[in-house]
């Protein structure tokens, strides 16, 4: 059933008894054309675009827990495309363009809200880098504006603009087309749309081994049995090393906890996304009213989905520095995800030396924004067995050649 106001009213009268399942809970088939490992946003998007753009519908998405339960379901939902290097800018901008029509495409309200993303700048060095970045972004035909101190103040009057604070705000860069989307809706929307095109979403199905015939993949061993396919795409974020390892592939990835937290819900007070790499925090307010915020990763490797309190303490000090009035608000819940960090802070969306095995990982602290774009190029890579122009540069070989795409600046603060 189509989601629409009319059906909502009709079902309201009908006590909502008529809504079908958004996605099925099928039993695994023996064989698929493509298996996507990982039922996060990227995996589901890949499956969706495989079916929609490439007509490959005999696809399974295999998820070890509940779909969307990885980083997709625990991220701070910042969407933007203001990246420095051309390769990144094009890929993230493709994604942003997809976001702009995604709610309608999926017929699921993703609450994609282009409320703007404002990066604050607190010292002269950062200011120089900011201009470099804004100019590069604009020349790639992506929106980005420089805001002077006064403009920052006018845009977000509740920011602490006192010039005598420890790290006074000197200016900022604003991408108005950036914003937030509802994280869970993204997973569910892609799942529903993919399901409607015939994709099987297999939850509680953990991949334990990847089956190979020589240098070719043939299928997977899962907690729900053996499933065969000639092509397998791994999109497992924090577990990238583990799953790639099953195919005998080493990755330049390290898994770290990235923590986030929400305040209690309050009436609207912050209408945009504020990020500051220098004091290290970023914050937005969700439609439900919580302030959603995060900072940087915990430095140690971890698969535990939890981090250390001192990271939160520093983050709170930073947010109170920017917004002294938030001091009396309260943290309602804190959590963490496991992010897959690449040495150059850019993702890997690539074929591998193992035939039929593709990896999509390394999105680290910032891949939510890329969800549709990542799925789009990865579907292309799998379907055509060659990368799309947009993800060509994001191959594994770059770590050997040295042709890295260093986006540490863009990722200075996790987002």
């Amino acid at each position, binding site marked *: 059933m189509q*989601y629409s106001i009319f059906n909502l*009213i009709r079902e*309201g*009268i009908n006590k909502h008894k008529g809504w079908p399942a*958004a996605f*099925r809970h099928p039993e695994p088939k023996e064989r698929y054309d493509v298996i996507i490992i990982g039922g996060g946003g990227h995996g589901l998007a890949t499956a969706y675009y495989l079916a929609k753009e490439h007509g490959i519908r005999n696809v399974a998405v295999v998820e070890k827990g*509940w779909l969307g*339960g990885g980083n997709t379901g625990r991220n701070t939902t910042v969407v933007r495309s203001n990246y420095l290097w051309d390769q990144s800018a094009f890929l993230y901008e493709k994604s942003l363009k997809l976001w702009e*029509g995604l*709610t*309608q495409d999926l*017929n699921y*309200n993703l*609450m994609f*809200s282009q*409320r703007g993303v404002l990066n604050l700048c607190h*010292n002269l*060095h950062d200011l120089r*880098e900011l*201009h*470099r*970045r*804004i*100019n*590069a972004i604009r*020349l*790639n035909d992506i929106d980005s504006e420089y805001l002077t101190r006064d403009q920052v103040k006018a845009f977000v009057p*509740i920011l602490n603009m006192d010039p005598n604070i*420890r*790290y006074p705000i000197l200016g900022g860069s604003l991408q108005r087309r950036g914003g937030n989307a509802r994280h869970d*809706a993204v997973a569910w*929307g892609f799942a529903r749309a993919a399901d409607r095109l015939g994709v099987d979403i297999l939850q509680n199905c953990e991949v334990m081994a990847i089956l190979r015939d020589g240098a070719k993949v043939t299928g997977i061993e899962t907690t729900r049995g053996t499933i065969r396919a000639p092509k397998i795409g791994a999109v497992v974020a924090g577990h990238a090393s583990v799953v790639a390892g099953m195919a005998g592939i080493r990755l330049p990835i390290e898994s770290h906890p990235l923590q986030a937290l929400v*305040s*209690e819900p*309050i*009436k*609207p*007070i912050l209408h945009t996304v504020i990020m500051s790499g220098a004091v290290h925090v970023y914050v937005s307010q969700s*439609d*439900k*009213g919580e302030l959603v915020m995060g900072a940087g990763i915990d430095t140690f490797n971890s698969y535990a989905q*939890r981090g250390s309190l001192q990271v939160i*303490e520093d983050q*709170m*000090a930073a947010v*109170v520095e920017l917004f*002294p*009035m938030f*001091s*009396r*608000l*309260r*943290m*309602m*819940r*804190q959590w963490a995800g496991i992010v897959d960090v690449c040495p150059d802070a850019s993702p890997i969306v690539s074929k591998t030396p193992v035939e039929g095995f593709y990896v999509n990982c390394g999105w680290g602290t910032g891949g939510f924004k890329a969800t549709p774009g990542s799925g789009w190029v990865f579907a292309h890579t799998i379907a055509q067995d060659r990368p799309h122009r947009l993800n060509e540069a994001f191959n594994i070989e770059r770590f*050997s*050649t*040295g042709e*890295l795409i260093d986006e540490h600046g863009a990722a200075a603060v996790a987002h």
Partner: protein
Amino acid sequence: MTDQRFRNAAGGRIDRSRPLTFQFNGRRYDGFGGDTLASALLANGVRLVGRSFKYHRPRGIVAAGSEESNALVQLGTGARTEPNVRATQAEMHDELSAASVNCWPSVEVDVGAINSALAAFLPAGFYYKTFMWPPRAWRFYEWFIRRAAGLGRAPTEPDPDRYEKTYAHCDVAVVGAGPAGLAAALAAGRVGARVILADESSEFGGSLLGEAATIAAAPALDWVAGAMAELAALPEVRLLPRTTVFGYYDHNHLGLIERVTDHLGPRTDTTLPRQRLWKVLARQVVLATGAIERPLVFDDNDRPGVMLASAARTYANRWAVRAGDRAIVVTNNDSAYPAALDLSEAGVNVQAVIDARETPPDAWREPLRVRGIDLAAGRTVAAALGRKRVEGAEVYELAADGSRLIGAARCYDCDLIAVSGGWSPTLHLFSQSGGRPRFDAGIAAFVPGESRQAERSVGAARGTFSLAGCLAEGFAGGAAAALACGFGDGVAPPVPATGDTPAGPLRPLWRVPTAGHGGKAFVDAQNDVTADDVELAAREGYRSVEHLKRYTTTGMGTDQGKTSNVNALAILADLTNATIAEVGTTTFRPPYTPVTYGALAGRSVGDRFDPVRMTGLHQWHEAAGALFEDVGQWKRPWYYPRRGETLHQAVARECGAVRASLGIVDASTLGKIDIQGPDALKLLNLVYTNAWDNLEVGRCRYGLMLKEDGMVFDDGVTARLGPNHYHMTTTTGGAARVMGWLEEWVQCEWLDMRVHFTSTTTHWTVVAIAGPNARRLLAELCPDIDLESAAFPFMAWRDGTVAGIPARVFRVSFSGEQSYEINVPSSCGVALWQVLMTAGAKYDITPYGTETMHVLRAEKGFVIVGQETDGTTTPQDLGMDWIVSKKKTDFIGKRGLTRADCGRADRKQLVGLLPENSKDTLQEGAQIVAEIRPKPPMPMEGHVTSSYWSAALGRPFALALLMGGRARHGQTVAVSSYGTTSWAKVVPPIFWDKEGERLRG
């Protein structure tokens, strides 16, 4: 003024000698010391306290502690206002003021309640299905949704209060000071263990504060008082009332939040913090966190006046407040019986106990009869009547399998429905510690499973609900925990006798069948999640408990579902034909109750947010009117404007002074590392790209450090002080990084390398004088060093005295002029500086800041790591191939430089730029574009890294990284910034004194 009509004349633990007045929604009321806002409101007959999140349904008080889901208020006003405070935890103080949240214009008449009428169209997740049209209209809809959402309001002024944090260590941390926790603390404290006992309530005693129980044949609270006195006398026991243990982190770290002065109300004396965050490292933890009573899920169970039975009982016993006049008590277990009796004792007209069980234990019949309370077995309440408060209840017989109501309703006329759906042990901290809860069908609740950290649960937190059991487990747990830390013999102290009535089994009752008149049966009242929502989620495929939570938002409110989660998942289990154990719980996460940001920030606010590092000359710079630049944590003078000068004018003046005569700059922040050892030379050869073998004592050399990938990492001058002794300098920002880097290599990789590093960054104050008159000035003050170039050439150093101060003088230059860097013991920095200023007056000695320093070095084409480099830049890119030794077989980064990408001809290389328009200073960060198009996209081939107006050249100039730049000298390129294009000629990146005569002369 009101009469506290629901307050009994005697009893309770309030301080009747301390009458207080407070305001709620603008009206004044009376209360007493020891009240909470909730108990005082109830005493005054206020039942309607707030409006719900989504439907704006009228809501009252359901609980007596931190599990309260409904009674959230905006506490206080002005800068001290605080949203979403649970009325049950807001301690009464004089002139307390509070208001309902989420209603307009008032809690009685709330416009938002229109949502209630539209409720049929606003089920769980409705927003995912609509507001999609027209495309891009979402932000329009969102505007309204955002305004409707949220509960209270953030303050709009900075917080006037102070917060702080402290670390603490103990052998045994006991969480919860009910009977179990007190017993544990006693057992551990008596044998000498360091104990921290924390309870979130203002008073210790836990459930005993709300029960009329007996211990050792006396009121249980006498035992509590005795225990408190004993604990207070133990020197190693720390008692923390009003302190919530909010998080259980790795390695037995606990996060505690203590409300130090909140209960005193706004004060002017701020020597004490408002709240204090405790970070406790405990060797052993005893969790005595008790259990939380579950409500029952029946139609309109959210009406003000539906209350947990234990809460109603607590209001009666602890605060002498009757939560209603006419009550019925509805239960599926024994615990509501003593509640009914206590309510009756307190003067509430308890009409009946409605027990879902067919055969309640006989022990209760007689006491009920004595009090004239009916007992209706096999029955339950299926609907509450009334709107803004309970006006009655419909009670039905329940089918044996619980699936249907049987027969006709019996209506009770009541204003209080006290409910008990059983008890859930408070497992939050246990779960946070990594433990997995286990479902215990006997009590129909999750209980702690195996421990993952050094922790044990005791008492109700472990599913033990008898007082005797709680005491016994507490004593045993405390003794065992102490023993595990090496105290005592592990033998539990004897357990005093209690007056427990043995409890019978409970009858699980998760969803009372609907009475069928369209009421809503709430699972999570705070987030307005109904049983129908749970059903809808399951039908739509959101069958994992985590999906259920997120789709319906159950358990996602400020109470985190303390009272609702188990009901929700049990209903889901029923719908999906799974067992409750299979469905499992959602993940418990900190904090147990919300924690103030200010407390987490602690003292790191305002001017203590982050250390300001200052050189010994900082006060001089300040007095001289310098503006400062942040470089890492350092404050460095940026420029010294004279009256009315702009940055541009000041910098032109400062530059001019250096080039023409003499400038002086504070260079103290440069990193300095003292390196000693027979392998020091070997080390330098490994960490720098150039060769160091032929550096003589008395000389210094510039070096470049790379990371293993060949990218420039840091640079600086290193001097040879002795055969095995060097003085290394680093960039200001890189000092700690380089020191760590050297230590890491030597400690982890080159274990037998004999070399030691000592940071001497701040030991020295470094003052550089630069300009044609530098030597002349120095000569006046430095009698013991021969300054003639032959004796003291460029890139040499000498020890001597300057102005009588022992000094080490380096003849190095970052400005391109004759220059000396004078290093003196830091404490003498000001003295040196002042002498130089005085003696240099005749040369018009001019202090200059970082901006001038940058201009001067750029004129010379000297790079700044971090400005001309960005982690993707090799020495070759910088045109510094000359510094990369071809002879050395190895140095860090050598192999990285030979990777395929590093050899590309089109890499970005350092060039100079001369703008064609000589008035046009390029924007730093401007991009060099391959072709100018009417509008973007335009391909980029480099960017401007540094750009200044040069007083010396009389024109602007810049440094840039440009693709294949070195082969493009002489070309003109287009430089684009914010839509304007400038043209510039590509030149070699050196503009001043190309032969270097000035700095050598």
